[in-house]
């Protein structure tokens, strides 16, 4: 599960390929000479798409109501940013996502470490996880609104639950796949059970924990959008939905693009955190 899952975490195929090559430094592959050309293509590709998009709309083959030209989207984007609408929406969504993500991942890490470490705790928690995990977390939102009211808490809890399971499952995997010889070695070097837990099990599980965090960040963004469709008048999801209902197509595009930017930023943030907290991890050395 871990390997295919880590590919979902936003790593590009080109980056992964470059890593396989580092093991073969002596082989003098013609990689260097290709590099600038590859970069040029990567920059040109989206630019050409944008130009084509602008042209198609200008020629008038597609109605602006379905596909506004990129420049008009940019204008609306700038205006919404300048008048504070977009920053406020981002801030509200960030608060909900941030709280849900923080609490969900802390809980997931702590419970996951204990589940992976203790058979009894695993026997208690495992059937619960197996029963709840397959439920789409957005399907729990109405229930949480019933329990926690229409305000932010129900949104935060929905995000929390979504993040919790992904982090929990990956943390358990991290503890379980830890090489048992490392625990033996620590014991041989005189470590107590508590020290083994803190100094071997926790750092040993960190790379998998980060896999869970990357996936959790993705689900958190999905869930903040879904939960902001209902019972609120703030946030990026709300703004996007309102733009649709008022047929403000440029504004819709501006919101969608903002969601994309937030996705990229959250991935970067987690990559940075991983670099700081586990510099030895292979996913870090691959970056």
């Amino acid at each position, binding site marked *: 599960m871990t390997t295919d899952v880590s590919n979902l975490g936003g790593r590009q195929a080109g980056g992964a390929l470059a890593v396989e090559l580092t093991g073969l430094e002596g082989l003098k592959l013609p990689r260097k000479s290709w590099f600038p050309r590859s970069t040029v293509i990567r920059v040109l590709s989206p630019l050409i798409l944008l130009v084509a998009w602008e042209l198609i709309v200008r020629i008038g083959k597609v109605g602006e109501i379905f596909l506004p030209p990129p420049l008009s989207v940019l204008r609306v984007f700038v205006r919404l940013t300048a008048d504070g609408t977009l920053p406020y929406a981002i801030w509200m969504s960030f608060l909900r996502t941030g709280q849900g993500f923080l609490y969900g991942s802390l809980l997931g890490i702590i419970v996951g470490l204990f589940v992976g470490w203790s058979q009894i705790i695993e026997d208690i928690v495992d059937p619960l996880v197996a029963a709840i995990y397959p439920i789409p977390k957005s399907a729990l939102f109405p229930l949480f609104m019933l329990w926690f009211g229409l305000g932010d808490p129900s949104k935060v809890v929905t995000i929390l639950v979504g993040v919790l399971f992904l982090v929990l499952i990956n943390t358990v995997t991290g503890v379980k796949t830890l*090489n048992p*010889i*490392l625990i033996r*070695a*620590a014991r041989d070097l*005189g*470590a107590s059970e508590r020290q083994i837990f803190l100094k071997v099990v926790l*750092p*040993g599980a*960190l790379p998998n924990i980060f896999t869970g965090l990357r996936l959790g960040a993705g689900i958190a963004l999905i869930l903040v959008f879904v939960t902001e469709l209902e019972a609120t008048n703030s946030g990026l999801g709300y703004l996007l939905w309102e733009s649709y209902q008022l047929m403000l197509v440029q504004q819709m595009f501006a919101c969608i693009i903002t969601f994309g930017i937030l996705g990229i930023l959250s991935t970067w943030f987690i990559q940075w955190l991983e670099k700081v907290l586990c510099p030895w991890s292979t996913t870090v050395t691959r970056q």
Partner: protein
Amino acid sequence: MADIVARNVRKIYNPDKRYPVLAIDEVSLEVRENEFVAIVGPSGCGKSTLLYMVAGFLDLTAGEIKVNGKPVEAPGPDRGIVFQHFALFPWKTVLRNVTYGLEEQKIPKAEREKIARKHIDMVKLTGFEHHYPSQLSGGMKQRVAIARTLAFDPEVLLMDEPFGALDAQTRGVMQEELLSIWSKRKKTVLFVTHDVREAVYLADRVVIMTARPGRIKEIVDTKFAGYKSTEEVLESAAFAQKTHQIWKSVREEVDKAGPLDG
């Protein structure tokens, strides 16, 4: 004084299950202080089992093992293990891996680093203190593991096929380095290996174990006195003769163990 005494040791895996496995039986062995003893035998003969029982990781089904006159009950800092697959902590740098054992023994930080650097220097890895294990070659990793174990100064060194995962050239270099370290810092060594030549070259005595259930078949004296250099030992007729004798003896057991146990 740190000697190892094993008396009538027996180990049964899964004793309460349907298919109990008698891994080793009636093993009695004495390793004298500062002696280097190697154990060879066919795969599955229980040589690693014996080593892990001395380390305190496995319970004995019958018999007793004493280290330094005290019965073994749990792992302890008087015995240091070097594992085949290095068992370095991937999240710690070379320096931190080596200081780890000292940390657990509550040695002050400055002192720890001094000891660690001395041992890193001894295994010729100065300059790699801040590398992570994933950035090192197999031979370098095993050197770190040896430095880590020697740093906390155990009286007994238990080595479980420490060079088994290394290529032939690196293995040769590591064998020489181990001998040179051992000659400077005498320790009681119990060394498990598949490689008969390695056993004859390194050890004072070589213990040959039978196919499962592992018993001690014979113990051969392999001390070569009066040679000036490693090459001279390796090229001597005595060395070739001992290697051949032990190889033949092990081979008989491999044949007995049959293809399924290989």
